[in-house]
């Protein structure tokens, strides 16, 4: 589509940041609609959330971008590049990537909820990136909306000028133009020069089966077109560009991209590992002397084993992880094997939500049945001989006699809550071995509670507990702050006198009994009766701390055959057979995968 080239003074690069459920994706939809980027009839809810899972869970997982053209009230046409950001704390890393590619950020705040923990975290991150922040108050159509109150909160808590903040209803499409005008008037135009050598920031990528790796980039200086030979400055790899373009929001081929643009580039790149998010793209023949400051690589903090239910699916699982990795640089995996579960992978994630999402995508998009083991963090172990090691799988913990100390990662947790829930929240945090740091009143009704606690404690059920004990009113955010030595021990679970390696946990000594009892009880509930009696034991070293017994199966018979309906009998047997297939043999005991899941989801309150 040949069109008049838009000068960089008329380009605005921005992102939208918000606490989960404050309406980020709906606002993005409205912007696309009002600018005519997507015709009303082609709108499906939340266009940018293309992944089925994103729509269902109402969260954005991957950063995406889209170009819009907007005829502003000053009579000029502007190119607005929206870069979508994930809204969950697990994906803070992806947010930071997006921010580096923008000059401005729309901070959406729910008029009924006010400022939440991630609003705060995102706003600080935007401030750190020197972005112009435009607060937008959303959901004004709701009866419980308190626009003035929220305006005040934005001023007092975030220190942002909110007097002229647009008050909108993304759902109803009210005042959307105000947002567009604010972007045009407040977000600075990109600086950078077209005549300088190419300098572009890779902020995301995805794999396209026909075009190879598609690089999402923001061009700071220079220009690039098909036929150019580019170089990735960090990896040193060079490729010939086959196509450049923008997202509208589907890929739209253009002749060239120039300074200030946000778009994509394809260069028949086969391996996503050749490209690195955060890397700088330049031209081989006219390189820029200085790369852009890159990103800190995403560091997985939560680990678990993922195993195929059916061992024959190992290769398929490997392929699934490879494909997911293509679009998710933060996902780590390497082969491991377990006595109980056979061959599988040790995987690293940004957080528990990230883990759950990967798990669901494997099951849904690749139609594989998998078992995930209990999530673990990385422990720093110092052995008595002075050797130091990182342990992300309890199975790899050396015997207690060889351990001098174990350190575990700590996080600083900030919870924003209505003040009446401070009691329950402190109780949860204390139970989770948290150390109270401070508490601040944001206003007369809302409080920030600040704790330091072991990361291992929040990756299980902290979020669920927080939600249920505060009726969903509390929000939280966390960041890693380092390692602390604690009295940690390995808890083993034995089924029929054999250690089920996939069910070993590293826990604080004070909690071992409670945990051991709970796991044994849960397993008893889930392990079906078999031909013999099955003892289930929790142990620390050789010391048994809890025991349950699954009694031997006494009866599995179909008493009646009615009117020769043999098919019904066979169907029942087939169902039983299917059930057995879904179980894991440990020693000679069949353990259903649900048992592993149930233990994983085990809440301490149960």
């Amino acid at each position, binding site marked *: 589509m040949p069109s008049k080239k838009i000068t960089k003074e008329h380009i605005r690069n921005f992102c939208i940041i918000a606490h989960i459920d404050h309406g980020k994706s709906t606002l993005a939809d409205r912007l696309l609609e009002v600018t005519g980027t997507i015709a009303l009839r082609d709108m499906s809810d939340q266009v940018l959330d293309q992944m089925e899972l994103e729509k269902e869970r109402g969260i954005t997982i991957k950063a995406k971008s889209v170009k819009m053209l907007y005829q502003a009230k000053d009579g000029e046409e502007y190119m607005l590049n929206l870069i979508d950001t994930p809204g969950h704390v697990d994906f803070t890393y992806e947010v930071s990537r997006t921010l580096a590619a923008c000059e401005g950020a729309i901070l959406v705040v729910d008029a009924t909820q006010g400022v939440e923990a991630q609003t705060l975290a995102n706003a600080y991150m935007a401030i750190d990136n020197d972005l112009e922040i435009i607060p937008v108050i959303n959901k004004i159509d709701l009866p419980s909306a308190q626009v003035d109150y929220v305006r005040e909160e934005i001023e007092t808590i975030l220190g942002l000028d909110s007097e002229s903040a647009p008050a909108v209803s993304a759902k109803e499409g009210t005042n959307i133009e105000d947002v567009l005008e604010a972007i045009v008037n407040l977000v600075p135009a990109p600086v950078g020069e077209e005549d300088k050598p190419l300098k572009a920031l890779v902020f995301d990528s995805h794999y396209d089966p026909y075009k190879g790796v598609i690089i999402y980039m923001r061009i700071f200086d220079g220009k690039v077109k098909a036929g150019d030979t580019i170089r990735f400055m960090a990896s040193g790899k060079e490729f010939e560009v086959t196509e450049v373009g923008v997202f509208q929001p589907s890929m739209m081929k253009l002749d060239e991209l120039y300074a200030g643009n946000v778009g994509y580039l394809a260069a028949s790149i086969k391996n996503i590992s050749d490209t690195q998010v955060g890397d700088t793209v330049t031209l081989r023949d006219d390189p820029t002397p200085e790369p852009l400051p890159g990103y800190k690589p995403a560091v997985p903090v939560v680990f678990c084993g993922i195993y195929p239910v059916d061992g024959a699916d190992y290769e398929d699982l490997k392929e699934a992880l490879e494909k997911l990795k293509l679009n998710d640089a933060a996902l780590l995996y390497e082969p491991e094997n377990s006595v109980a579960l056979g061959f599988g992978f040790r995987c690293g994630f940004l957080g528990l939500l990230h883990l759950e999402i990967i798990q669901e995508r494997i099951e849904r998009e690749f139609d594989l049945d998998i078992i995930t083991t209990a999530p673990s963090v990385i422990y720093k172990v110092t052995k008595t001989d002075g050797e130091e090691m990182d342990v992300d799988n309890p199975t790899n913990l050396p015997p207690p006699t060889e351990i001098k100390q174990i350190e575990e990662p700590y996080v600083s947790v900030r919870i924003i809550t209505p003040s009446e829930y401070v009691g329950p929240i402190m109780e949860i945090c204390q139970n989770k071995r948290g150390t109270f740091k401070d508490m601040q009143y944001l206003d007369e009704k809302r409080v920030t509670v600040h704790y330091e606690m072991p990361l291992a404690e929040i990756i299980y059920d902290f979020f669920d507990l927080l939600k249920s004990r505060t009726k969903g009113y509390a929000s939280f955010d966390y960041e890693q702050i380092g390692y602390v030595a604690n009295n940690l021990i390995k808890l083993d679970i034995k089924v029929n006198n054999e250690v089920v390696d996939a069910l070993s946990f590293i826990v604080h000594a004070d909690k071992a009994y409670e945990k051991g009892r709970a796991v044994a009880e849960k397993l008893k509930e889930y392990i079906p009766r078999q031909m013999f009696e099955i003892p289930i034991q929790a142990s620390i070293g050789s010391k048994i701390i809890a025991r349950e017994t699954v009694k031997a*199966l*006494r*009866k*599995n*018979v179909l*008493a009646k055959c009615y*009117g020769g*309906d*043999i098919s019904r009998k066979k169907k029942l047997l087939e169902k*039983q057979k299917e059930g057995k297939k879904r179980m894991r043999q440990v020693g000679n005991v069949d353990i259903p995968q649900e048992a592993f899941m149930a233990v994983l989801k085990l809440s301490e309150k149960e």
Partner: protein
Amino acid sequence: MEGLSLYLHIPFCLKKCIYCDFTSFPHKEALFEAYTKALTEEIKIYGKKFNRPKVNTIFFGGGTPTILPVQKIREIVEAIYSCFDVDKGTEMSIETNPDTVALADFRAFKEMGFNRVSIGLQSGEDDLLRFLGRTHTWEGFVRAYRLVREAGFDNVNIDLIFAIPGQTTKMWLDTLQKVTALAPEHLSLYSLTIEEKTVLGKWVERKKVEPVSDETDRKMYHTAICYLKEKGYIQYEISNFAKEGLACRHNLVYWERGDYLGLGVSSHSMLEDKRFFNTSDLTRYIESLEQGLPPVEGEEKLTEEEIRFEKIMLGLRLKKGVPKEWLKGKEEATERLLRQNLLEEKGAFLCLTTKGMDLSNEVFLEFME
């Protein structure tokens, strides 16, 4: 075809029992006429299709077949005689329920050619009968039993259920004692199966009723096996016991995979390794036959492997077991089952032990591909 067995389903009853998930409807007297007509039409279709085949056994099941007026049963029986080749010695059974016996005319049934009656008693305890939703008492049953005997039937089966919530082993033994004192020729003992969709299933799901533990269930079963053996009954199948030579031939056809034709709503048939079944929808069944069409809803042609498995699964239900050669290629599983005391050898045969009967599904699963 070496002759076949006929099953006729009468889907009517006085009242639905809480555990029943068979195709049976109370209060459908208005359909008796139309159903009888449809069923005789179906008989005619198959009689013609297979060119008046020879019939080895006939079984009227339900529901409660005897809820139909005698005249209707007669019409059905006459249709069978005119469309099939029924021999004098053919086993011909009818199921009944104590409440309908007095109303029915068993002398007339005898004259029609019925030579075996199966009475659904279920329990000897009035409290348990009430719980199950049965409409009769133990006394009512005894009167019905006498009427059946007086009508000249010398081959009578009594159906009993055990592991009823609230039932103790002692209560069960009392029932067995009372029943065997009447000296029926045949006994069917069924461990109560709690089906999800039944009233009982829902009570259990809502924890209104506590099912009997598997331990007690098996104790009752083992008690019955011992007790009946003492009383001269031979166990010939997991749930069936009979005096010498009086095993139900119709039942044996199912276990031995003989050919059978199931007529009536929701009935299942197997002819020459092909299984097919009728619709379970009463209205559709009647309408289909009004147009002279067989109301078949589905069929399944068995593969070699399925036939092999069915032979083992059904054959092992019988006390005599299956010939060893049927388990060729399954030596490993067989060895394991022998070791676990689930199977035992009897000459050239392998059969289930009592423990094997308790866990028969586990055994069958070992032989399933």
